[in-house]
């Protein structure tokens, strides 16, 4: 392992993270809900459940964020490194896995760990480990 100092962006990472934490805090303190994106999306796909309007509006805010950003500044760079087949497979696995695992990076990784949930800590360790392993296989075993 060697650190890619040229790509390392500690201050925007920390401040972006702080905004994410602030958003999750507002949502739980005011709306009483966990800001887990896969959970909000999944519950809107199913019938019933309360607070559908709040869940939909949170996701709408997420969708609209780049439009708001674009009013003030050029949007950050976006570079996809995966082709169509890979993206399809990845999307299916992310959709299926986050529903079985009851959460993703936001619900488990941020909100769950912040409320000291053992389930979320285990889930976060699991998806981090398989994320690291997958990139290792694809970049250094298969691709290398």
């Amino acid at each position, binding site marked *: *392992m060697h650190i*890619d100092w040229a*790509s390392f962006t500690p201050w925007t*990472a*920390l401040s*972006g*993270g*702080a*905004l*994410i*934490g*602030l*958003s*999750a*805090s*507002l949502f739980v*303190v*005011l709306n*009483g809900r*966990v800001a887990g994106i*896969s959970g909000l*999306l999944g519950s809107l796909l199913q019938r019933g459940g309360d607070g559908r309007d*709040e869940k939909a*509006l949170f*996701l709408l805010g*997420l969708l*609209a*964020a*780049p439009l708001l950003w674009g009013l003030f500044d050029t949007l*950050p760079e*976006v570079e*996809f*490194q*995966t082709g*169509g087949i890979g*993206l399809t497979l*990845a*999307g299916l*696995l*992310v959709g*299926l*896995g*986050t*529903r*079985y695992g*009851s*959460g993703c*990076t936001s619900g488990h990784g941020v*909100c*769950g760990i*912040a*409320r000291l949930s053992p389930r979320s800590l*285990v889930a976060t360790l699991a*998806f981090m*480990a*398989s*994320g690291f*392993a997958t990139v290792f296989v*694809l970049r*250094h075993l298969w691709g290398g």
Partner: protein
Amino acid sequence: MRRLTALLAGLLFGIGLLLAGMSNPAKVLGFLDLAGAWDPSLALVMAGAIAVALLPFSWAKRRQRSLLDVPMQLPQKRELDGRLIGGSLLFGIGWGIAGICPGPALTLLLGGYWQSLLFVLALLGGMGLFSALERRRAR
């Protein structure tokens, strides 16, 4: 009021993702590539988010109702089972293939990239598959 705060929280979350670099799949994959040229930035995104959210969540855990007077809806499950671990492992594989998790998938959606549209359709398909499998199991 609850609708307004939900919308504002969503906007803030999206701005945070954009600022942090989470909306760039190449940067996310640079973080997941421990054996290559490793970019540790995203560890700081998580650390920053957790540090800010720690006290508000510990407050929320002790409350029955939120400040806007709705019941607190925190997850009640406790068990560490195969569904939690297996599902999270599958999610990590998908995350490692494309470098996109559900939040950034949505902030990328209106950017006009065919890749994000395809990813979100597949993501919704995966969630639909979960619901179909659950319905079959319930029968």
